[in-house]
């Protein structure tokens, strides 16, 4: 393994907006056509993502979050800008860093809070973790943990659009790490051959858990994978929300006009660990700080709003306040939500039969819960103290 990265090495260089391909040129950028409201809306969604995640961190520290907590700090532009390029009727499949995309698609902070706290009135009624939920009506499908599987699933979603002649597009996110899975490969290849109206977003956030991208693939960049599937490859600065919107909109339009799949690489950086417990011991010194100081997507867009798009601070600040209020209100309700009823767990494995019968050795309703342990499944433990790391 000779290839090594310097602390502030090439990786950080990849974030200059000029790395966007095929979208540069004289033609107007799709984002030029956004209204003033829409431009501020982009800021709202990014701010909501960040504030909501920060609230979740507080709840996590109070052990009110049952499982692990996954941040998208520093990646808010990537999730929000890309999903913003979809229409209401389009279908999107998020991954663990795409809470922002889900919010854009209509998921509510209340749902997300309830879900993280495994409440009985959460979208999955306590069956699934964190942001693993969806809603076909609002146009997003819940992910599962095995990485890559959502790519073939979205190939099928968009195949159905094509078969029925519907004017709809699909968008699926995949991490840089998940591009190594067989499911990713089979899914994008099938979608490409079938010319499904699908946008595949590869989020190059430089890590898969502790694994840097150079241990994940020898490809110079993720966008180099496009030619192998015979689809256009586009790349953009994932921390520039307008650039993200532009490149995704281009891909979405391509899909909508019958052009088939586009692979879009968004270059960004995962500033927090894989999950909240992860102490990021594997990250070179100064790397996170560099990104926080120089390339925060919210900071950048805040400046763009003022310096390039002519927004006054007095227009931006109310957004922050509104977000705080919304998250506060949602937290209050979510905390009051009841846990699931044990017997609710027996319902709906199949449409028919609609419920399982309780097992022979069980009588009546049970309350077997002794203590509300946090999933050790998510934890990196400190071996010496036997405690979970921060």
């Amino acid at each position, binding site marked *: 393994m000779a290839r090594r990265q310097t602390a502030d090495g090439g990786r950080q260089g990849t974030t200059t907006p000029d790395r966007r391909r095929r979208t540069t040129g004289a033609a107007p950028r799709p984002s030029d056509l956004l209204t003033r409201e829409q431009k501020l809306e982009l800021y709202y969604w990014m701010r909501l993502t960040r504030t909501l995640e920060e609230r979740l961190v507080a709840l996590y520290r109070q052990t009110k979050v049952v499982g692990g907590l996954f941040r998208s700090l520093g990646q808010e532009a990537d999730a929000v800008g890309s999903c913003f390029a979809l229409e209401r009727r389009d279908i999107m499949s998020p991954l663990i860093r795409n809470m922002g995309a889900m919010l854009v698609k209509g998921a509510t902070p209340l749902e997300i809070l309830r879900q993280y706290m495994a409440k009985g009135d959460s979208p999955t009624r306590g069956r699934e973790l964190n942001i693993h939920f969806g809603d076909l009506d609002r146009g997003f499908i819940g992910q599962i943990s095995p990485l890559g599987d959502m790519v073939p699933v979205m190939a099928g979603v968009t195949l159905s659009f094509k078969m029925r002649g519907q004017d709809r597009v699909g968008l699926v996110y995949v991490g840089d790490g998940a591009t190594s899975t067989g*499911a990713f490969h089979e899914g994008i290849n099938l979608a490409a051959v079938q010319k499904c109206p699908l946008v595949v977003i590869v989020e190059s956030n430089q890590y898969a858990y502790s694994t840097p991208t150079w241990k994940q693939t020898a490809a110079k960049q993720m966008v180099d994978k496009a030619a192998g599937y015979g689809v256009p490859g586009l790349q953009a600065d994932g921390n520039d929300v307008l650039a993200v919107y532009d490149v995704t909109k281009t891909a979405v339009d391509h899909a909508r006009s019958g052009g088939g799949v586009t692979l879009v690489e968004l270059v960004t950086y995962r500033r927090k660990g894989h999950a909240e417990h992860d102490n990021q011991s594997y990250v070179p010194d100064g790397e996170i700080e560099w990104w926080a100081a120089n390339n925060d997507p919210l900071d950048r867009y805040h400046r763009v709003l003022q310096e390039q798009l002519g927004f006054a601070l007095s227009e931006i600040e109310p957004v922050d306040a509104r977000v705080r209020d919304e998250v506060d209100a949602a937290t209050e309700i979510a905390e009051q939500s009841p846990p699931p009823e044990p017997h609710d767990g027996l319902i709906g494995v199949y449409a028919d039969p609609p419920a399982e019968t309780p097992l022979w050795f069980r009588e009546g309703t049970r309350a077997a819960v002794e203590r509300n342990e946090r999933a050790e499944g998510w934890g990196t433990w400190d071996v010496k103290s036997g405690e979970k790391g921060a």
Partner: protein
Amino acid sequence: MTEITYLEGIRQALFDEMERDPSVFCIGEDIGAFGGAFKVTEGLAAKFGDERVIDSPISEIGIVGAAAGAAHMGMRPVVEMQFIDFIANAYDILTNYVATARYRAFLPCPMVVRGPSGGYVRGGPFHSQNPEAGFIHTPGLKVVYPSTVADAYGLMKSAIRDEDCVLFFEHKYLYRRIKGELPAGDGAVPIGKARIAREGKDLSIITYAATVWKALEAAEQLEREDGLSVEVLDLRSLAPLDDEAIQATVRKTNRVLVVHEDTRTGGIAGEITARISESSFAWLDAPIMRVTAHDIPLPYAPQLEDFVLPQASDVVRAARWVAAY
């Protein structure tokens, strides 16, 4: 009515359902104009077009996942595995994504995964498998494995109409070896109901798929040579199992032989034994015994395959033992 083969029964069901419901479509390797490795889908592309009978890349994960996605959106995909053995490649997406979709996400996922299964045809270790045990183990999936023409037809209809994912195992040894008539009318056979293939009172053989025919052959011989009256229960549906029918035959004959072509350890016979033990222990006059394949990857040479797989003569020998207990 004219007699058709087991394979034709399946094809006819696909044809009828595709005609009835425009949301039904087929996807798989070489299933279009070519009609599939065994010609099960022959004629479908000509009738319904390339868009509803889709030739796919060699991507079992891809086609199963795509079927799930399309199913969420209201389509009713039928996925062909060129040989059911290759369902192993889709084990993750089937057991983790498809099987859990309704429970964890309230997503409908009505789809069928079908393919030629089973041995007795000199297919070797990768073209003869019976992988059903790995899937009945997965809550959220249904599994059927017909042994007759009418069931092949009728269960395929029910599988396509089912609101959940149904794995439809087709026994390739039976494809063209057995013939039968289709019943008048719709002919759909409900999933979850076993069938008494032969009535008897001394001993019950519980089985499914190709070994139904081995059991029937054995039953005749036992009647002829030993005067034994053997009941043969054809499960047809492996998930859900028809507990009522199993219980009924066991309580009637009090002696049970469970027969399957699958390998022994971890095969479905264990599950059936446990259910009988739990529900009908007091009715048993003899231990529940199993006749199965050896725990060996299925070898290719006829001499080896026949030795590893259960034969009618094995059923006869085992039945005599149980009857004499």
